[in-house]
């Protein structure tokens, strides 16, 4: 069973806040899902290989040549805040 504190810790790792008012429901739902997933422990998977890609692929190479890419103007078009051709964020370095 996952606890409230663990859920808070995972929220922090995920850069999310969960309201205290929602926390109990969230913990219950999380546990429902994790309990259901327990069924995979019926299986002995020790001798199986992990499959990270379902369709077989070899390395995909291309020539290293310069091609047109997204312009600075377009790249900044959706930025919530931009200045001097760059994304602007709150100050991160203390003086």
């Amino acid at each position: 069973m996952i606890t409230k504190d663990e859920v808070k810790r995972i929220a922090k790792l995920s850069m999310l806040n969960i309201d205290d008012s929602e926390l109990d429901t969230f913990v219950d739902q999380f546990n429902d899902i994790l309990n259901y997933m327990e069924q995979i422990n019926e299986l002995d998977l020790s001798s199986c290989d992990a499959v990270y890609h379902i369709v077989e692929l070899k390395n995909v190479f291309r020539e290293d040549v310069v091609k047109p890419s997204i312009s600075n103007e377009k790249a900044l078009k959706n930025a919530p805040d931009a200045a001097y051709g760059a994304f602007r964020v709150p100050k991160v370095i203390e003086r």
Partner: protein
Amino acid sequence: MLFKKTLHELIELIEKGEITAYDIYKSLLERINEKDKQINAYVNVFEEFETYKDDGLLKNIPIAIKDNMHIEGKPTTCSSKILSNYVAIFDSTAVKKLKEAAATFIGKTNLDEFAMGSSTETSYFGTTKNPWSLDRIPGGSSGGSAAAVASGEAIAALGSDTGGSIRQPASLCGVVGFKPTYGRVSRYGLVAFASSLDQIGPITRDVRDNAILMNIICGRDEMDSTSADVEVEDFTAYLDKPVKGLRVGVYEDAIEESSDDVKSAMENTLEILKRLGCEITKVDLPHSKYAVSDYYIIAPAEASSNLARYDGVKYGFRSEEFDDLGEMYIKTRSEGFGKEVKRRIMLGTYVLSSGYYDAYYLKAQKLRGLIKKDFDEAFKEVDCIVLPTTPTEAFKIGEKVNNPLQMYLSDIFTIPANIAGLPAISIPNSLSKNNLPLGLQIVADAFREGIIYQLASAFEKEFNLADKLPLD
């Protein structure tokens, strides 16, 4: 009444010079104005008729696009607050290919937020209603696309399918939905949810329209290194071919778990297939019963990584009040994402976190191999596998929204094809006692889409909902 016609009928009418594409656009716009207040299939309807090419296969006929694929210059919201102000700066490859075939676009359709859901109830822009019965869900996550096609608000649409998001809504709305083999269609410009599972495909009113669109959107793309370098066939060449002697495997475990309506629909379906001369055998997929567990480890794990990019810096919504950068990230994400998206990000973060990785994620990847192997074995004996698309008819709005696990289990029959990367279609195979559509799912081996179209087109001649769709 042009909105009632299929894509191939409209192509013919334009070729004969009887109508123009603009007539179709106007007809759709009128239909949308009349119906969409009730159905809410669209997030964004295009009020101008824009063309991209003078002539081509699609003759400027308007297509609807799920709002998680980019059309340059148009908003892509993913039905999320966090992208509610985003305007696409490039075309997704599927859209680009449609433009090259002289398609136009009528609008962007509603979905569960970031395609995470089976009902469209998690959309920031409200639930889409099932056009067959407005108090029911249309399925999800491509619920907007399926409802639009079923109700005459679109002729045809693109959807995306990560765990059933094309097939399940197609089944519940009585239309045809196809998920291609993983890698068949480029994912470039499709907003990523779970990258090893996501695949774009068409939702249409009949099998021919579906094959026409598949012919256009398939193919290797240098912008998606997972797109497959496999020759693109003419899928329409498989339509109308006889299916006598085709070896069809039945996955009976799925039928046993289904409602009575679905069971009797499958009995009738098997009768029809026998009559058509198919050789019916049983197949065993012993690990498919674990597919939902497998999926809810792998998909959230990939989502937690893919959705880390939404931080209020490069695009989208940014929270207004914060003291420093860290707080800006957290407030932006907490205010910008809905509950289900947060749940999946956290589930994914948990299964990947230190100490749990081996217990969940690594096991899930091993299990994925077993599920695939079952299919490989089955396809030594049969050409394709049939099973219901969903265990029940469309459920009521609100019925499962507070019980995530029950919601997840509604995709129990569609998830295995995603896990194994296989192509699968849903086509209508019955109406339930409540007069709601049910779907037949046909799965084939990787890159054998053709055989699916062959069987689907033969079945469609024996059963279809062409005269029963809610188009009045």
